[in-house]
């Protein structure tokens, strides 16, 4: 069998002609019909750029400057706009990361799913709709007959992602490109979506390119894996080879970052820093019995000791971020008591003293939005020093340098604005700012989920070191069970604003588990390529 998709010495450049920077260096691979190739790498590794070049597309400011991209007979790199328009959607299709952003919110789903079929004139409207309903069934969407009549906001994120796959498959393309299609989904949803993708790709014998940063996800679906770093091919091998006998050091680094360790943390418990009992919180009017009109959290209790980490696991909508906001006083609790160092803590931040504010510091998920782009790093770190500790001038400068050293960043960063820093550096500064206040507890809200695996691992390591050095308490909020498991002394599982399980990390490593915890644990993909199929047979 000959190659169906072949990419030869693909080179993509970015920037104006003459001073262009090469962002993809001579990447070559071939795929047989029906094969699934995974492009894996960190952000900036060029994986999406390569995937887009299969559509003959380069993002604004970039251009395909060399090599050939053959899909079947066509060289996508050499086609003009009109020719490409004829091929895209019909022969090659694309599934984007965020279906919520990719669907037009003001048009019904069916209209959008069959749009490309009608545009290319491959079938009539009624044929296309029948075909779409077939696809909905194959993708195991609920009520396939009527789901197309809904608007995008009326279905869930996981369903929308599958609808997007239906949109891509409507013309039965030869090649389909999945660009991180499950990254934005919860683990329990991700399993179903992956399953649906895998089945449908097999059923139509479609060649697929799957872009992801998650090796465990890729292991379930890909026949071959291409590892990328900085726009260069590191390694390309069949999936089992990559997983078991990785050739390249970088691949092994990626593997070790996902490998599930059985270790758990069990730090010496210090005195209680924060003691939270029977918290209710939410939005709207508060009724006489202390329940808010729209409850988000009900009856949550938690105790954090100095030097310990309490992990909070939950899916989106579980109220885990709200809980952090309640502790920080941004959303005043409607009911319940909070003690900080054995002293009563008022629910609303405006009633708290400066010292109380200083004791509790929050670190946000996305360092891009958590750091003011208009300020220099030195000012970002210096402000809490001046505000809480009255440091000025040389003393402040000195302390900023110490903080930068503490999070392992060079001291000369202090004069730079954070726009030019990498994601990992930004997150370190984010952390350093919280430490600048010298708090007794830090609330970490999904601090690693916006980072690449290797970078995230380094941040987690740093967090552990800092905790040991400074003896602070940490509340670690995450949707990533394996991270929480390896990092936390105590673990709380939240579901719809209620505590499902609250145990020590030691206990969590062995079980027993509540049914929902069990479901969460089983939904995390492992590096075993048969994992998805074995789950299927169980279901």
């Amino acid at each position: 069998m000959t190659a169906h998709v072949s990419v030869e010495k693909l080179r993509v450049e970015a920037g104006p002609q003459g001073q262009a920077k090469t962002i993809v260096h001579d990447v070559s691979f071939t795929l047989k019909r029906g094969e699934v190739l995974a492009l894996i790498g960190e952000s900036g590794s060029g994986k999406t750029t390569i995937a887009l070049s299969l559509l003959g597309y380069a993002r604004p400011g970039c251009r395909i400057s060399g090599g050939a991209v053959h899909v079947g007979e066509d060289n996508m790199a050499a086609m003009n706009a009109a020719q490409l328009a004829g091929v895209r959607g019909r022969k090659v299709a694309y599934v984007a990361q965020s279906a919520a952003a990719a669907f037009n919110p003001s048009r019904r789903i069916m209209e959008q799913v069959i749009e490309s079929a009608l545009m290319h004139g491959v079938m009539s409207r009624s044929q296309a709709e029948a075909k779409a309903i077939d696809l909905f069934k194959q993708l195991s969407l609920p009520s396939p007959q009527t789901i197309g009549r809904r608007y995008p906001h009326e279905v869930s994120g996981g369903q929308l992602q599958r609808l997007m796959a239906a949109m891509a498959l409507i013309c039965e393309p030869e090649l389909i490109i999945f660009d991180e299609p499950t990254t934005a989904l919860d683990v329990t949803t991700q399993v179903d979506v992956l399953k649906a993708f895998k089945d449908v790709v097999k059923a139509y014998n479609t060649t697929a390119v799957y872009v992801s940063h998650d090796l465990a996800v890729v292991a379930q679906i890909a026949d071959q894996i291409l590892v990328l770093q900085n726009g260069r091919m590191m390694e390309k091998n069949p999936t089992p080879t990559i997983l078991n006998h990785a050739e390249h050091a970088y691949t092994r680094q990626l593997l070790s970052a996902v490998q599930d360790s059985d270790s758990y943390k069990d730090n010496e418990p210090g005195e209680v820093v924060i003691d939270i009992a029977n918290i209710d919180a939410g939005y709207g009017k508060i009724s006489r019995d202390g329940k808010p009109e729209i409850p988000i959290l009900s009856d949550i209790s938690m105790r954090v000791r100095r030097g310990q980490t309490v992990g909070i696991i939950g899916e989106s909508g579980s109220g885990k971020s709200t809980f952090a906001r309640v502790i920080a006083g941004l959303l005043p609790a409607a009911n319940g008591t909070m003690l900080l160092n054995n002293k009563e803590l008022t629910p609303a931040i405006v009633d708290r003293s400066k010292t109380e504010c200083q004791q509790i510091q929050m670190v946000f998920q996305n360092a891009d939005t958590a750091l003011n782009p208009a300020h220099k790093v030195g000012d970002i770190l210096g402000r809490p020093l001046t505000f809480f500790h009255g440091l000025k001038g040389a003393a402040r400068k000195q302390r900023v340098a110490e903080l930068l050293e503490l999070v392992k960043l060079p001291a000369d960063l202090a004069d730079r604005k954070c726009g030019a820093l990498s994601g990992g550096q930004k997150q370190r500064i984010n952390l350093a700012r919280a430490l600048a206040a010298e708090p007794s507890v830090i609330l970490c809200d999904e601090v690693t989920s916006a980072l690449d695996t290797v970078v995230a691992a380094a941040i987690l390591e740093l967090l552990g070191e800092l905790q040991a050095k400074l003896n602070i308490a940490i509340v670690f909020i995450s949707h990533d069970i394996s991270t929480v498991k390896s990092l936390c002394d105590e673990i709380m599982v939240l579901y719809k604003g209620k505590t499902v399980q609250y145990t020590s990390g030691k206990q969590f490593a062995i079980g027993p588990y509540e049914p929902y915890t069990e479901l969460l644990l089983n939904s995390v993909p492992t590096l075993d390529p048969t994992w998805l199929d074995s789950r299927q047979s169980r279901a």
Partner: protein
Amino acid sequence: MNVLKSMPLSGKLGALLVMFWVFIAVFGPWLAPHSGSEIVAYDVFEPIGGDYVLGTDYIGRDVFSRILDGTRFTIFIPLLAAALACSAGTLIALFSAVSGPRTDEVISRFMDALISIPSKIFSLVMIAAFGSSVPLLLTITAISYMPGSFRIARALAVNVANMDFVTVARTRGESRLYLAIKEILPNILHPMLADFGLRFVFVVLLLSSLSFLGLGVQPPEADLGSLVRENISGLAEGAPAVIIPAIAIATITIAVNLLIDSLRGGATYAARGK
């Protein structure tokens, strides 16, 4: 200088014209060959290229000198008025954005009420009540363009106020003043500067039309709008006395617009490049 170099051609043209007009506004009175109010010729509405560069006006004054003299009103009153309108609008917007929803609501509705008054009618009523003077013109134009500036600044500030870095500052217990000035303001400054330019153009046009009605800058002083009005009888014979000031107003407004557009384009390009 780099900013100028990276601009498109239209932007360079705009910048050049703006610099030219600012130069005239500052040094015009000294450059003028005659006093603006001096009657220099017996012939009225002389054409270009006679004894006087741009001819004479309806009572025989030197048009060239009068334009050199009058440009400062057309440039500086709007400049000051736009600066007042924009800084007041931005500051109130910042206060509104960091305050609670109730304060925000009250301020916003008040501004809505203000914005619904047509600026020309408002100026006419005010001038009828108090008589025309430069301070009054300044106040009127500043008040009528402030709500628009407020709306834009508030929309921008509310977006920024919801960013995590502002929340971080809130959890630190920072004052509202700090949130507004240190955290939010630097992030909305660029678009507000563009807005300032646009408002400047609006004020130039409003002021010129008021002067055209005879309600703006009062004789013996004259801004470009007044020059057009007082020489309107020369329009039939195509006198430069009426055409040149009109062209001057047009080039000022167009130049500022060109400059702003290219600056704005440059700003978004820089943001994309990052």
